């Protein structure tokens, strides 16, 4: 897949807009999800994700082939989202805003299942929203993209120690915000144990 995407990237560099639109199609979901998870609301996420691709288009010639394409794209998105959060100057997004899920068509899901998924999604988003931007982005890259410390460090321009420390602090902060009853409900039947 990466080879195909690199081919599209090469074609886009030569001015082929159709190739670039295929790249957008391939990365729209991860980029949008990152923006949504970092910014916490759909309109800003839509704008930030669009801007990410516009920046990617104008920076196509700066892409280094030895770097993973997905890391490069996510790096552009995460830097832009952090800038957006800084511009907000501490004005956190209201949790009452309409989440994206309600705007999307449900794919063969019953209303009860949709409601449960929605509730779970909101709970997760609420947790993420409590974190400062510096901790939020590494956490999102770790959980939704399964990036390693090295990849997160590369995407964010941090040291490995900083990534490790930020993820640790993010967890410490999040756990304080989770109500005790909610935690009990989260514990699976399988018990504990180090994975």
């Amino acid at each position: 897949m990466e080879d195909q995407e690199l081919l599209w990237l090469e074609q886009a560099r030569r001015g082929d807009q159709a190739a670039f639109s295929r790249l957008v199609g391939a990365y729209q979901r991860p980029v949008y999800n990152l923006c949504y998870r970092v910014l916490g609301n759909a309109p800003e996420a839509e704008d930030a994700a669009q801007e990410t691709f516009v920046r990617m288009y104008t920076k196509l010639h700066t892409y280094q082939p030895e770097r993973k394409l997905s890391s490069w794209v996510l790096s552009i998105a995460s830097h832009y989202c952090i800038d957006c959060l800084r511009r907000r100057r501490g004005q956190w997004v209201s949790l009452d805003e309409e989440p994206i899920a309600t705007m999307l068509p449900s794919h063969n899901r019953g209303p009860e299942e949709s409601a449960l998924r929605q509730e779970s999604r909101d709970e997760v988003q609420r947790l993420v929203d409590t974190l400062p931007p510096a901790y939020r982005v590494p956490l999102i890259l770790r959980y939704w993209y399964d990036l390693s410390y090295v990849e997160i460090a590369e995407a964010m321009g941090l040291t490995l120690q900083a990534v490790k420390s930020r993820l640790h602090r993010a967890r410490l902060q999040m756990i304080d915000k989770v109500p005790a009853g909610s935690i009990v409900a989260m514990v699976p039947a399988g018990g504990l144990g180090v994975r």
Partner: protein
Amino acid sequence: MHADYTMLMSVVLDGEATPDEMQRLREHLRACAACAGVWERWQAVDRRLDAAPLVSPALTFTENVMARIEAQSLKRRRARWLGSGLFMTWLAGSLLGLAVIGALVYWGSQYPGQASGAFFAALKGVDSATWILLGLLRFMGGVGAPALAAGVGLLATLTCLLGMLWLWVVGHGHTLTTEPVSAQ
């Protein structure tokens, strides 16, 4: 709870711990009930985060991005056109001025008599223009400084407004926008 071990828990949850570190945590959790409780909570939150799905953008997302890119390149093309237009105008004006000066110098060297006559005629013209200007100044003096300042200010404002309007028309065009393209 032991603070050192929460860092270790975090590393284990990230899948970055060595077998030795995992063993160390396992042994500690057997001996420390407080840390075992924390580990339980952390695992629960970890599972919840792991299970959270990716959210998807609107179906028209790709079209919207391409429309935004097209709008931005159109704006850049217009700016480039405006810049090159101004440069060409300046260049043409300079060349024309040089050509006129060159022609005058050449003509003066070929026909010195006619040239000196023309020069004095031009001086007379400047003299007449000076008289007209002085007449105007006297008239303005009669009008008074505040009215004069207001008139000049009005003219300057109108000129600026017209200039800005022209720049806006050239720079922005009809439907051009760089704002996010909303989902349709």
